[in-house]
């Protein structure tokens, strides 16, 4: 339908649409950043032939990544399938990631977290085993069990009761 002669054609108000689209862009940028931080790219998870799909039956989550220490300057990058010598740790909780060089530092970080959990939970719930964050351990597939168990032990010693291990589901390759 053409505009009557002498009147200017009406234009749709695109400003509101632009606002909405920019909001969506900001949302995706923020979410993608958090997602990448949670899934540390230096961790190559084991490939599981039988593992359950992820469930969201938790309220609070602390992700501990365990990965080979990066090579020193001038050294070649290690073979991703070679057995891991020195390891590093990163802990993601809430809104940030922190890297640690030893399991003692990880233990201290987890201790701070469980103390915060305890403060935020009633005594009755805490004694019933509720209110604790879920510890998710994402360990590199070439680590040995001793390296992985150190993190489990640190979590146990500060008072966590359960742990969740992560692996790539069979037949699915990460990007």
């Amino acid at each position, binding site marked *: 339908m053409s505009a009557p002669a002498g009147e200017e054609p009406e234009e749709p108000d695109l400003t509101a649409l632009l606002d909405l689209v920019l909001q969506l862009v900001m949302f995706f940028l923020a979410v*993608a950043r958090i997602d990448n931080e949670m899934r540390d790219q230096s961790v190559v998870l084991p490939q599981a032939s*039988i593992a359950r799909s992820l469930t969201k039956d938790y309220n609070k989550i602390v992700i501990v990544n365990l990965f080979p220490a990066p090579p020193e300057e001038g050294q070649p990058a290690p073979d991703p399938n070679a057995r891991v010598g020195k390891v590093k740790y990163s802990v993601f909780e809430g809104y940030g990631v922190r890297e640690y060089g030893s399991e003692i530092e990880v233990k201290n970080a987890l201790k701070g977290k469980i103390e915060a959990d305890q403060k935020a939970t009633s005594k009755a719930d805490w004694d019933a085993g509720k209110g604790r964050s879920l510890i998710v351990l994402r360990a590199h597939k070439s680590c*040995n069990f001793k390296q992985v168990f150190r993190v489990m032990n640190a979590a146990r010693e500060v008072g966590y009761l359960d742990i969740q291990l992560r*692996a790539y589901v069979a037949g699915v390759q*990460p990007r």
Partner: protein
Amino acid sequence: MSRQGRTARHHDAAGIVPRVPIIPMLDMAFQLLAFGLYCFDLSADKIEGQLSLSLPRAGADTSTPTTSEITEPEEDYTIRVTSDGSGRVAGVELTTSRAPTPEPLPRDILPLANDLKARVERKLAANEQPPKLDMQFDPDLNYQVVFELLSAADTAKFKKVSPSLLEAPKKPGG
């Protein structure tokens, strides 16, 4: 510039209506949105699988036994996995609180999972509780192998699966 001059120029510009180029901005925003949608993997949760385990409590278990525990103690299983020195499995053996003599189990994942599943099902068929399982791994074992073994045990629906470090075998008379 004098004050009079500035006022005159302001009057000249008053007739010009500034326009923001909305349409190219919208085009660019849609491009960014498409890029974000492509990069943000909506199926990321399908890449990773989970395995939930219990961490054994530190120290001895001092819990008060219940009546049923006094009349008929539950049978707990222990699986010991040894390494061949290169991170692979050398042997898998099972002991239980009722049968402390080690019994060899399959080393491959699927036969092991089926074996453990059959044992738990036999327990359930006899109206017994599913046992707790302590899996002791050699510290040298590769994590990939450990994860596979743990997930095999997880499918068997034990009451509780706890990983731990392999204890040194007890010396006779020690």
